[in-house]
């Protein structure tokens, strides 16, 4: 160890055997997906005779074309987009405002309110979902986009995350702005908010994924077929597939429905891992 700069802890912890086992196990991760992609490229009638047909040509894109002809799936896709984008914008707005105030401003009961909000992190969905369902019923809000968006906006995680981020910005920055007698809202809007863009991206992507993948709430709130999100719609069309009826079409639907999140994942992997890990640890 004469040359300390050459020391690397990796050389002591890396294990080639473990690495290659992990690489081999990746086949288990991938095999189901490859299987589905294969099925989605096959003619449904051919699959009815036996799914081994996957291993031989001909392949076709007809199942994907059928998604666009079958307007229902496309409508569900639009619903999912509206709900996920709407919920994301709502969460970003509410949480940025609240996070700024909790991190930077003084007001009566600030600490108490913040702790109360943090308690919200411990409330699981099933503890509130029955009451929520009744409340939305009182106001006749079920089967609307707004009903699908709203509950997700009450999540305390975003407030927690944004508060942490505003706290991490050096105080000198807003104090310099205050010398010019700038209003609080202008400081928030013009000076600090642009600095929180990485946090906005993390929280935004995280919220989008949660909203896109949400299952239980849309299952009970959207009962009309035309109000289904993609998650619920695809679940509803799986009912009688044991006879491998339309297996290729079902597989194509699964691929189509996961495309947006897969694309988001490929481009923003780092943000997603940060957000999901942070969301779990809180």
């Amino acid at each position, binding site marked *: *160890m004469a040359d300390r700069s050459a020391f690397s802890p990796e050389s002591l*912890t890396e294990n080639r055997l473990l*690495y290659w086992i992990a690489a081999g196990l990746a086949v288990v*991760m991938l095999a*189901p997906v490859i299987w589905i992609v294969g099925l989605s490229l096959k003619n449904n009638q051919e699959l009815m005779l036996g799914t081994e047909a996957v291993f031989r040509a001909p392949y076709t894109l007809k199942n994907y074309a059928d998604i666009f002809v079958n307007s229902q799936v496309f409508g569900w896709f639009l619903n999912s987009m509206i709900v996920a984008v709407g919920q994301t914008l709502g969460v970003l707005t509410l949480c940025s405002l609240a996070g700024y105030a909790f991190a930077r401003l003084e007001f*009566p009961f600030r600490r108490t309110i913040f702790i109360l909000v943090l308690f919200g992190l411990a409330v699981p969905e*099933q503890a509130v979902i029955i009451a929520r369902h009744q409340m939305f019923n009182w106001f006749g809000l079920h089967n609307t986009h707004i009903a699908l968006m709203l509950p997700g906006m009450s999540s305390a995680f975003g407030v927690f995350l944004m508060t942490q981020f505003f706290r991490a910005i050096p105080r000198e920055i807003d104090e310099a702005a205050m010398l010019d007698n700038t209003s609080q809202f202008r400081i928030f809007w013009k000076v600090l908010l642009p600095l929180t863009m990485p946090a906005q991206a993390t929280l935004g992507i995280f919220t989008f994924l949660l909203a896109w*993948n949400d299952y239980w709430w849309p299952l009970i709130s959207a009962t009309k077929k035309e109000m289904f999100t993609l998650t619920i719609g695809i679940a509803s069309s799986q009912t009688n597939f044991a006879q491998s009826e339309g297996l290729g079409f079902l597989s194509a639907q*699964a691929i189509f429905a996961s495309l947006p999140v897969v694309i*988001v994942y490929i481009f923003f992997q780092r943000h997603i891992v940060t957000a999901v890990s942070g969301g779990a640890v809180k």
Partner: protein
Amino acid sequence: MAESYRRSRWSHALFVVPYLIVFLTLLVFPLFWGMWLSLNKVDLFGGAEFVGLRQYARVLSDPVFHQAVRNTVIFVAVSVPVLVGLGLFLALALNRKTRGAAFLRGLYFSSTILSVTIVTLIWRIVFIPNDGLMALIFAGLGWEPIGFLSTKGWSLFSVGVATVWWCIGLPMMLLLAALQQIPADLYEAAALDNASKGRILTRITLPSIKPTIMLVAVIQIVMQFQLFGQALLMTNGGPAGTSRPIVMYIYETAFIRWDVGLGAAASEILFVIILCAAMLQYWISTRKEEV
């Protein structure tokens, strides 16, 4: 100038009001309203009659609920060690700065972002009797085919396989983050002693990330106690309720049979279980920071 900024003002609270309105109406109020519902007999038209703790007595004496609790506990007891163990294995194996390791990390995490509908659709197709990928593999190995989703014992197991496939990314990533925070000087000392790789693993690496292993285990307990979509979509709780978890019991009583009070009482019981686990999580994570 900075003085007035730090002064406590009611007007400053305006920034938190929009969120607080949503928080109070959609989280705090339903939480307490749910508790109230669990003390009532609610009919389809929203009429309620106060019945005290009678709904709790009904839940606790319901054999279907007992079965659901048993299923959930078995599921948690088996899936959590697998998720933590496999997560730890992957974290140790993939904690290196190569492109290949980065790709594999991305791959193992990728299933986490899929929705439960897609995950179950994929695995249902894989598990189809006779024609599924699993049946083809079994046939190739010369084994008897199994109705994975319709056989007692196998159905909950199959839900577990899909769940591990879906959830493995998070434990791996959390443990990787912990591994990367182990101070390099610890290893430097070990290198001077010429310690073997096995000793370094058991004496330095594992003890250093022990708090995170505990934390990951508790997070998984909280998450897996809430098993729902996979069971509903893959097996519908069957056969004979052997794969029905607690949350599915709540869903069925409250939203299929519209026995709202009973469902609310069951959800409060689960809430208490999860709260205990969450408090354990908080306790471990605060202790972790002190270390």
